[in-house]
């Protein structure tokens, strides 16, 4: 019973983690950017979906779509307003570019967070779920929404896989994540690849955010923890490796669930952090890192 419980709950939460972290990994793989406003983008999507339901009184589907759109738009704004100017700035030394991008995206995340707290208070928000009720899975009473979350996550991951492996633009993106110079030499404009990946990333973060909003709920305080969790998953999986992030998300998700069930919910995140420290120390490239 407990076994099935952990298996099912861990799967749902891990799928969410995976979706949230994959876009993050993709961006790092292609452009070497660690976007520390990640959590803020996700929360923005949740709050948009929530506000659409509460203030505009739209249905859950429209609300969710609006949330995803906000994630998408916020991601592109982040790229054009913050990341691109820093990537192209000639005033910044190459070896310091990284810390500038990290600092700027973090500041940007704080701005989004403060704006949300100002407009909608820092109370937790939950998005009206698209599906309600519970079903029994292997004797475990499971909310339909939890199943829905896992299904949508895997649909999105599957679509991403198809996009990357079955379309020309997607192939170019994948190729760019392996060797950005290589695609330039093949006549692909990297600047366009960047726009494509930030758009994909925005949609993924938006979907992950809205699902999280339906599943657990978020507040403006979730910004930091969400960024940190994506960050640790991506590091664990190996910076820049999308498939590594997928695996790491499940490692972290199940480790957390196991801890929560078997030890105490209060210690939930600690074993995952310990694992992270050990992995960084033993193999800084993470589980599947390339760089």
């Amino acid at each position, binding site marked *: 019973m407990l076994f099935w419980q952990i298996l099912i709950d861990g799967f749902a939460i891990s799928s969410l983690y995976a979706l949230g972290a994959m876009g993050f990994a993709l961006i790092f793989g292609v452009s070497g950017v660690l976007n520390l406003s990640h959590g803020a983008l996700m929360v923005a999507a949740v709050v948009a979906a929530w506000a659409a339901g509460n203030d505009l009184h739209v249905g859950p589907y429209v609300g969710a779509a609006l949330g995803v759109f906000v994630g998408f738009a916020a991601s592109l704004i982040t790229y054009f307003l913050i990341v691109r100017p820093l990537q192209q700035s000639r005033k910044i030394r190459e070896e310091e570019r990284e810390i500038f991008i990290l600092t700027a995206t973090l500041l940007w995340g704080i701005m989004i967070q403060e704006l949300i707290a100002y407009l909608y208070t820092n109370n937790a928000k939950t998005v009206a779920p698209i599906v309600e009720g519970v079903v029994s899975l292997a004797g475990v009473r499971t909310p339909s929404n939890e199943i829905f979350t896992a299904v949508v996550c895997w649909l999105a991951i599957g679509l991403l896989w198809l996009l990357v492996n079955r379309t*020309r633009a997607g*192939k*170019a993106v*994948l*190729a760019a994540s*392996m*060797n950005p*110079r*290589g*695609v*330039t*030499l*093949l*006549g*692909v*404009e*990297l*600047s366009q690849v960047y726009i494509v990946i930030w758009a994909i990333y925005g949609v993924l973060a938006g979907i992950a955010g809205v699902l999280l909003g339906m599943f657990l709920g978020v507040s403006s305080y979730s910004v930091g923890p969400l960024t940190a969790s994506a960050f640790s998953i991506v590091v664990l999986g190996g910076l820049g490796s999308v498939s590594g992030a997928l695996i790491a998300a499940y490692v972290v998700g199940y480790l957390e669930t196991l801890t929560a069930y078997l030890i105490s919910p209060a210690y939930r995140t600690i074993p995952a952090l310990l694992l992270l420290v050990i992995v960084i120390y033993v193999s800084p490239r993470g589980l599947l890192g*390339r760089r």
Partner: protein
Amino acid sequence: MADARLDVAGLTKRYGGLVAVKEMSLRVEAGKILGLIGPNGSGKSTVMKLIMGIERPDAGSVRVGGTDVAGWPSHKIARLGVGIVFQHSRPLHRQTVLENIKLALLPDRLTRLLADPETDARARAIAARVGLSEVADRYPSTLAFAHLRKIEIAKAIARDPQVLLIDEPFAGLTMTETSAFSDLICELRDDGRAVLLVDHNVKSVARMVDRVLAMYVGERIAEGTADEVMRDETVRRVYLGGSLETAARPESTFRDGTTPFLDVRNVGVQYGKAQALDGVSIHVHAGEFVSVVGLNGAGKTTLFNAISGLLPYSGEIRREGQPLRGRSAARIARDGIVQCSEGRDLFTGMSVRENLDLGGQHLPPADSGRQIEWLFGLFPILRERQRQAAGTLSGGEQQMLTIARALMMKPKLLILDEPTLGLAPVILEQISKALERLRQTTPISVLLGEQNVTFALPHADRVYVLEHARIVWEGEPERFAAEAGTGYL
């Protein structure tokens, strides 16, 4: 025997399966200069790093004045009296030249909060010694490249090392600077130091060295005086290849007259202070096969990257009369000037077929399929390897894939940067044949950059020699051996 300041024996270094240095032995006596030469990738820089303790050797001994220091951390080796002059200078930019020299004079102690009063005088003396007196109080960023190199020398000799390692002493220097620099090195030798000079070819160091040791793929191939080494058959084969057969078509047969397909005029490129290209002019006619030969570091890659739009440059690069400046690198590639870079830039995690498809992504699917069939004809091995990940191919197969991928773009001009790097002779043969077929059966122009002359000359219609950022010779391949060959060693 006993007075060998530096005595290296059986030194071996492996990176994974690759043996970078294999049982190297060398000795340098006080007051002597040993030249360690070898083409790119021969392991000579690794030897230097092993001596300095920057890398740990897997086997062998490094004796400095009798003490075996193999495996020591580099600061301890330095304190035992070994100094190194790096090829790339990275002075502290916020400190003056003098302060940079003072740095090297400081004791390695945490408690030293005030410098000894005599440090200043000693630093000034060293500055005077290497010819930096006039600029001692200026900041490195305001200085010429030669001065930056001198700062490196000054730092290296600050601790009065008995063994001095110098990596590519003349890279990026002009003729006059080179001669001033070699005088300085000779003076340091006359102080009674043992000097190890690491460089690409014998010629550049011939004037100063007492002995030369030539390396090739991690092993010693010859040792002796500069003349002996230059006459050595193995060395000649490594650098110049065997007998050369050429089949050049005269330039007049290319009918685009005064506006060649590619016209590079007076192009210069700077990396920081170093002049990587200096007033280079070359041209390639439509359908012509042009080789640019030059040693590693001469500027070939820089030239190709400038053409491909990957670097800012001065001067003018035109394609069919139209300036290329302002077009993005990707646009230049799409328009038909396609580069196979030295590092190959393959998508190692993707299959051979996927790599090729990416090359053909701008083509309609039908064209792309036809092009792949044609390429499988050119490189049959790739057909067998279609489903294999590019990263798992052998070096030669990877090189073929790189060329094939570039050809998928239906280029008008194909730029090949060092395609032979690290490849076995059998593979060279195959690539060579493919290039010849390309030359015979297609209208594609080729611009080939090589240090391997054997490979570069047979197909070439015309040859340029690039040396120290400049074009020093241009002509038909058959004239090369007589006019430029000796200078090439």
